[in-house]
């Protein structure tokens, strides 16, 4: 949303089509300004954030995919420049664990539910 500000600040970057701009904006929300504290580059006034916004716009303008842009950023600025970590290296754990948690939750819920379905007899507590 805020990344529109980038478009105003960008003098050197190529002009993007509307869909490219949307992609670039979404990416800018996911890339961390590495000199700030936990702010995405779309929300930072820092000089480096502005440079990174220009770079993202350039890469999108060259026709790179989202994954390629993320890889490019992670290679230059480190894994911690991505607020949405990649599912590789140390990051895979972050994506696999929620799935395992979901499986575990499903298992326990099903086990609790597996009581006999024929319960339409008088309630002993009532």
């Amino acid at each position: 949303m805020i990344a529109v500000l980038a478009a105003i600040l960008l003098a050197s970057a190529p002009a993007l089509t509307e869909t490219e701009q949307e992609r670039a904006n979404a990416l800018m929300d996911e890339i961390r300004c590495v000199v700030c504290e936990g702010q995405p580059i779309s929300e930072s006034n820092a000089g480096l954030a502005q440079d990174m916004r220009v770079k993202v716009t350039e890469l999108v303008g060259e026709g790179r995919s989202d994954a390629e842009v993320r890889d490019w950023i992670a290679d230059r600025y480190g894994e911690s420049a991505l607020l949405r970590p990649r599912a590789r290296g140390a990051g895979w754990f972050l994506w696999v664990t929620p799935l395992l948690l979901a499986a575990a939750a499903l298992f326990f819920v099903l086990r609790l539910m597996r009581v006999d379905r024929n319960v339409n007899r008088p309630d002993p507590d009532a």
Partner: protein
Amino acid sequence: MIAEIGRFALSLALALVLAQMLCALIGTRRDSAVWEALSRRAAALVFVSLAASFACLITVFVQSDFSVENVFMNSHSAKPLGYKIAGAWGSHEGSMVMWCAGLAGYSAALAHFYRGPLATRALIAAGGVLVLFLVFTIFASNPFDRMSPVPLEGRGLNPLLQDPALAAHPPLLYLGLTGLLAPFALSVAALWRGRSGKEWAQAARPWTLAAFTALTVGITLGSYWAYYELGWGGWWFWDPVENASLMPWLLTAALLHSLVVSAGRNALTGWSLFLSISAFSLAMLGLFLTRSGVLTSVHAFALDPRRGVLLLSILAVAGGGALALFALRAPQIFKDKVKFDPVSREGALILNNALLTMAAAIVLLGTLYPLILRTASGDDVAVGGPYFELTVGPVMALALLILPVAPFLRWRQGGWGEVRRRLLYGGIGALAALAGIILIARDAPLGAAVTAALAVWVMAGALSDFATQRRQPGTLGRGLAHFGVGLFLLGAAGDTGFSIERSTALTRGESFEAAGRTVTLETVRRADGANYLADEGVLTVTGAGRQFQMTPERRYFPTADQTTTEVALRRSLLGDYYVALGQARERENGEIAWVIRASNHPLVWMVFAGAFLTAAGGLVSTGSHVRRRRRAS
């Protein structure tokens, strides 16, 4: 002198807690009402002693007694009185005294409201936790330490914290977090006694509801502060410090629903015990995360690794000990063999618990994993909003899908009949909202459309619940809380999906277009306050058939050498118009231009109003439980 009284009161409290535990232990062993009464009396005195200590701390802050190091570090004589008082809990040391006073308050309240073997054992457990935190406060984090030579002036409170919402945020948050001590202590007592069931669940319910209420208000105040103080117009950043309070909130929400099953149906008791222990453990983990300096974020102000290790040890002893007790004793208590159909209220509440707990676990993973990884291997990985939205989002969406259904399901027995009758229009409305937003506002993100549809679904469910079942006890609180959740979702959908922000540098007389309005910078003037220098931008905003003036400020606090933004807000039922004054820049031709950031925040008031409504629901439910209890006894 007052500082010495405060310091003495801390030590006195420690001695009294030990007496409280000893008397309760003797009372339990000998089954003696006299010893139990002594223990209750001691618990009350512990609270009086800690409240006095906290009052002494506030007094030295009000007096600006800079011979006390903590006052020197966190206060300034030119500060308004309100923020001098708030300085008392603005630091690590002061907040620990407040934390201990909160724990003691709940322990004394437990002693006041309950008698009998369960309550007496709970006083031992609560006392044990309090001993750990008091020893920590007295020996590693004492706010009453004097310094010499006495400085003439203090360093001042972080100017970002000098704000009414944020001054009230820590006390309410702590009131909620420390409130989780009550269900925790009762759980330990129930496990120790080896008997559980209805009595325990009924005792734990009002405390859980009260803690939930305070926690909700505390988090919302912090969120509202972030919205207007940080200058970005965001109200949730998935910052580790925010997550530290969200995790116990999620588990408390799960707990108060599982307690409905435990207290009403004598089922899920083991699970409720586990949640009680986990919720307070996560509250202690939050204290460790925010007060140890292990995080470096806007919120983490205290930096001292030694204390971090000590806080982690307390967490390990208290939380780990309780969990070990649970593992040892739970199999004895887990015997309840309940029978119910999957399509029943029990079934819905079990799903609610599975989903809320899962959400809390993912937040825990995303918050701790980067820290653990950095410590263990030195690798850096960042986990931010996009990760949580993608993982926690769908889990919460599922939970919200079930939410309106549960009140219309019957206990034990299956059947969709009532659900179909009462939620038909709500369902149609939700689908219509989804289709309408996708068709009309094509630019809107899918997440916002889904959130809006869920909002309609949840609010319709709450209204229907209220309209059809209002004669049943407890429905008012439930209806309010659930309606608040729906209102919150509608605000969240509006603000995250339809907010537009523009920013540019303007000099006097220039204007620009932002979010459907024209913003003109008339002038920038000085507007200094008691302890800061400020630039105030005077902006004329026209558009949508209206014209009004907005005056955002940029404040510089010389004592802290820090600049803050004071945004200007124009509120309406449809949303806020939000402008912030940024840095001044010199253009090539020598003109000074100020960065102006303007945005709209559609329906954003619903985010906060909804959360407060949910808290109000919690308060109503707490009240009805206390009244029912009083009638019973």
